[in-house]
């Protein structure tokens, strides 16, 4: 079991009630008798609900026979139930430990800082209501499909069928994910860089603005997907056409928001920098761009959203690989479980990308913390 890895023994050892000698001194140097730690146990209802919910889900899956669906039984029903049981056991252990350590550590450390092990437990506590909700949703899904057949095949499939798809198709799904990511990466990189440079240029230089502004105004509002037939015709391959369209979709919001960010920088900042001896290049690099960066990120978020639309449509219509293509392909073969599997994968990938962008923003814009409410 993975449990040992999840709960680093060292993090907890000093507090274990079983070893009173070691628990005499906590990390903060305060004396905390072992008896105190034992008494500090707190029963957290929402923590304990999650193993219960997962056990219930396991019971439904294992004990309630599947409705016959006119073909051989759904595969992996037993594995799904057993997996749910294992998870329920993990949640139970975490709920038990969280009741012991999170509260106790919060009380014993003045700084409010927790040891790594207790942080894992605190994270579990925070996530517990969602863990419970997911079990409830999975159980409902399983009941509506496999158990009662209210939602019937081929359009609906039970959760266990997703396991089947992922186990049998993972090579192809992986391949599709890689292709989608590569295409998206190329397009977004080009679009982001070009849009950013264009935005800075328009915001900074009147001459660049004179030429770029009207073009941007005319081409920007066109939905890039409307250009799909045209670009597939002009570009040598559907791949390069898609890169171009994704770049276009990303570049427009990035350019507009970078431009408005640069144009909105307060004149006083430039005055200060100029009296300190700044060159024009320094003003762009060290004043205009950092001041506009929050806006640039807004543009990037919008650009990401637009690029997701374009790539899926492009893959559905012309590109012969990728998750969008997989969606149309599985629909063509009426392989609906495959479609659900691909959709879930896509949602995880795209939300992962957005999280990455959030992470980058949080790193680059630490200075905004405390000045604005995100």
């Amino acid at each position, binding site marked *: 079991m993975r449990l040992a890895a999840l709960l680093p023994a060292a993090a907890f050892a000093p507090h274990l009630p079983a070893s009173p000698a070691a628990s005499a001194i906590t990390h903060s140097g305060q004396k905390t008798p072992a008896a105190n730690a034992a008494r500090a146990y707190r029963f957290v209802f929402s923590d304990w609900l999650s193993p219960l919910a997962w056990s219930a889900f396991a019971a439904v899956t294992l004990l309630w026979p599947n409705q016959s669906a006119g073909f051989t039984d759904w595969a992996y029903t037993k594995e799904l139930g057993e997996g749910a049981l294992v998870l329920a056991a993990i949640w139970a252990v975490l709920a038990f430990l969280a009741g012991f350590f999170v509260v106790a550590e919060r009380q014993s450390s003045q700084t409010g800082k927790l040891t790594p092990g207790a942080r894992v437990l605190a994270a579990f506590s925070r996530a517990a209501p969602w863990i419970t909700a997911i079990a409830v949703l999975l159980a409902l899904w399983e009941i509506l499909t496999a158990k009662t057949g209210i939602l019937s095949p081929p359009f609906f499939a039970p959760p266990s069928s997703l396991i089947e798809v992922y186990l049998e198709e993972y090579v192809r799904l992986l391949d599709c994910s890689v292709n989608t990511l590569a295409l998206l990466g190329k397009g977004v990189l080009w679009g982001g860089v070009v849009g950013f440079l264009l935005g800075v240029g328009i915001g900074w230089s009147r001459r660049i603005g004179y030429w770029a502004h009207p073009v941007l105004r005319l081409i920007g509002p066109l939905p890039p997907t409307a250009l799909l037939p045209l670009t597939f015709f002009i570009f040598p391959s559907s791949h390069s056409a898609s890169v171009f369209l994704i770049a276009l979709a990303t570049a427009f919001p990035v350019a507009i928001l970078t431009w408005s960010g640069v144009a909105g920088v307060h004149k006083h900042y430039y005055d*200060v920098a100029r*009296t300190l001896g700044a060159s024009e290049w320094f003003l762009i690099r060290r004043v205009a761009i*950092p001041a506009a960066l929050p806006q640039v990120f807004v543009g990037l978020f919008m650009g990401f959203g637009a690029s997701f639309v374009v790539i899926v449509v492009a893959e559905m219509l012309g590109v012969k690989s990728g998750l969008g293509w997989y969606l149309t392909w599985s629909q063509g073969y009426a392989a609906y479980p495959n479609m659900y599997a691909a959709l879930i994968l896509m949602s995880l990938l795209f939300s992962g990308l957005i999280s990455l962008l959030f992470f980058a923003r949080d790193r680059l814009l630490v200075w905004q913390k405390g000045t604005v409410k995100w």
Partner: protein
Amino acid sequence: MVNPTESPALNIPPEEINAAPPEFHARPYWASAIHVQHVSHAFPTPEGTPLPVLEDVCLDIRPGEFVALLGPSGCGKSTLLRLIAGLEPPLSGTIIQDDAPIVRPDPSRIVVFQDPTLFPWRTVRDNVALGLEAQGVLKKESARVDEALLKVGLENFAKAWPHQLSGGMAQRAALARALVNNPKLLILDEPLGKLDSLTRIEMQSELLSLWRKNGFSVLLVTHDVEEALMLAERIVIFSPRPARILSEISVDLSYPRHRDDTVLTALRHEILSRLGLGKNW
């Protein structure tokens, strides 16, 4: 340019001179002289007739001198400072620093604006380092940044973000950002205007001791007659817009000065009456 023994007109008591660091005596050799010669300026208006803001202003600042500008709000004081800083060219007349006309901003003349205008995306230390970075000497001279932070008492806030500073601390950081460049002329546009009266008094004496240690020339715009009297060697009074120089008053009083000094009280009456406020006193 100027012999240290004959200038500037600082009537420092002997014990004060002994207390001052050695570089104090060197200041007149390198501090800047400014000559504002018949400068007039106007701003374009939507109606087409330009708005005259400065009218034939002549003003000389000797090296190491502390000059204060007083005048009604909106008369054109900040405009004059912007011209001297080199941020804008005057419509007519010339402004000369030492022997060369001022045509563009230069780190030898540093402005501290009424707002601290710290860059919110830089830590306090990086804000103070801005000038050295812009001049491309940060690597060599980074010790000066810490020195400047020490001078204004912000050494423990080097890594803080500007929004974590109080108003007075932010203004001190802006002062450090100016001082780190070893300016020959420090241009201060109501730098203490927004501070509460206690912090203000504290900052005034800090400013005074910085000036006396470093020896740069200072041009200070203020709304506060008492502040001008406490700090400046010479006070220049402007008319309402368009600004003309109405009169100049020398404050021949040694430092540190005392607020209730009878000479200062008399001068305050004098200045207020020249500003047209005599009756209120």
